[in-house]
């Protein structure tokens, strides 16, 4: 129960942070994907299934404040959370660079899925110069923010939760 409350708080906090605070503090014209970073952090701590469910909930909440089709972020974030959870389960040894790398790669995958599915429903083409530039700058920002967001997500996912490893 406590864990669920924390996860709900994480969703609300990251969505408000991204849509109300960071939208006014852009870096090189882009807004860091703190919601997606939260999803990646939860998936890293709790595994693919929780990552997928949390990604769906966080994405759906973010979709309330976007102009893109309702459900698009939910779709992209759910798949990204699941994929990161699967990837994390196969990692046998972690290092201090793992989190920024996972944050950057996870955000790259999340943005590509978002833009890719978005292209299918009439949004800006995935391979436009603008899309590519925005994605690359966002990935760099997200890699820097990943350690902080993963810490916060780890707290929300449950105190003492350790990254799930593959059961041999």
């Amino acid at each position, binding site marked *: 129960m406590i864990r669920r409350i924390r996860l709900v708080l994480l969703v609300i906090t990251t969505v*408000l942070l*991204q*849509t*109300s*605070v960071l*939208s*006014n*503090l*852009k870096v090189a014209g*882009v*807004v860091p994907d703190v919601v997606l970073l939260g999803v990646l952090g939860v998936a890293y701590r709790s*595994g*693919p*299934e929780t990552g*997928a*469910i949390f990604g*769906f909930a966080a*994405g*759906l909440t*973010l979709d*309330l*404040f*976007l*102009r*893109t*089709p*309702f*459900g*698009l972020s*939910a*779709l992209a974030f*759910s*798949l990204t959370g*699941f994929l990161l*959870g699967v990837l994390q389960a196969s990692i046998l040894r972690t290092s201090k660079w793992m989190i920024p790398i996972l944050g950057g790669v996870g955000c790259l995958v999340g943005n590509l899925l978002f*833009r890719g599915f*978005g292209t299918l*429903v009439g*949004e*800006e083409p995935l391979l*436009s*110069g*603008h*899309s590519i*530039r*925005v994605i690359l700058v*966002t990935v760099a920002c997200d890699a820097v923010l990943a350690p902080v967001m993963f810490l916060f997500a780890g707290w929300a996912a449950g105190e003492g939760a350790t990254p799930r490893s593959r*059961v041999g």
Partner: protein
Amino acid sequence: MAVSRRASRGRSVVVLLVLTAITLITLDQRGTGTIDTVRSWARDIKAPIEDAANNVTSPVSDWFDGITRAGSLKHENATLRKQLSQARGDEARNRNAARENKRLTKLLHLSFAADVPSIASRVVDGAPSNFENTIVIDRGTAHGVAKGMPVVSGDGLVGRVTEVSKDRATVLLLTDREFGVGALLQDSGEIGVANGIAGRKTLSLDFIDAAAKVKKGETVVTSGREGGRFPPGIPIARVSSVQKHAGDLQQSIALAPLVDFDRLEFVKVLRWPTTSGG
């Protein structure tokens, strides 16, 4: 055995979530009113939190803005000082007109669309996503704002209202790829369509005949045509480049918007079309 069962359940959950998301996307694409209503409620609930966040972050964003724009601000400062001394010289020759223009601009007493009723509002948020060119203003249906209404600043056209809730409205900026407006070149009288371009701060002016004489620096205003979605005469942009290629039916014209979207703080929503049909 337990691992494979867990993995299988995980995949089932993901499939269910994906199907749910696709269903929601399809419903939204079909224009279900329920989703719009829910979005409207969410914006209204977020509004007071947004206002509180703005009060806290605006000094920080000003500081951040100052750091990231330090180089351009220095250059702009030098340019403005030069312009100020030139303006002082002009003021001596035409003092009354210069003072009145400065006062009008400061008060957002528009020199265009002056007979159109308007709603003054403040920009409270930028775009929440990196793939939208929108702003959020602090006026909504409770103040008379409706979808489709044009939005202007003292410098010219900003965009149009695309979503509105009780206390908030989302404005699609004219630099967005989905934005288009009937445009009139003030000097040559040619009529075309000004369109936003994804990822750029410039616009394209389309459907201008290849034989038309278009000058760099020429002002472009709204034509007031295409069903009267915008009142005529609102400044949009200036021509920044003109290219003609042999055999082309139209010219390639780039426009630089008159509004500085990075510094937008106060705007006006025009109640257009007016109920009197004006």
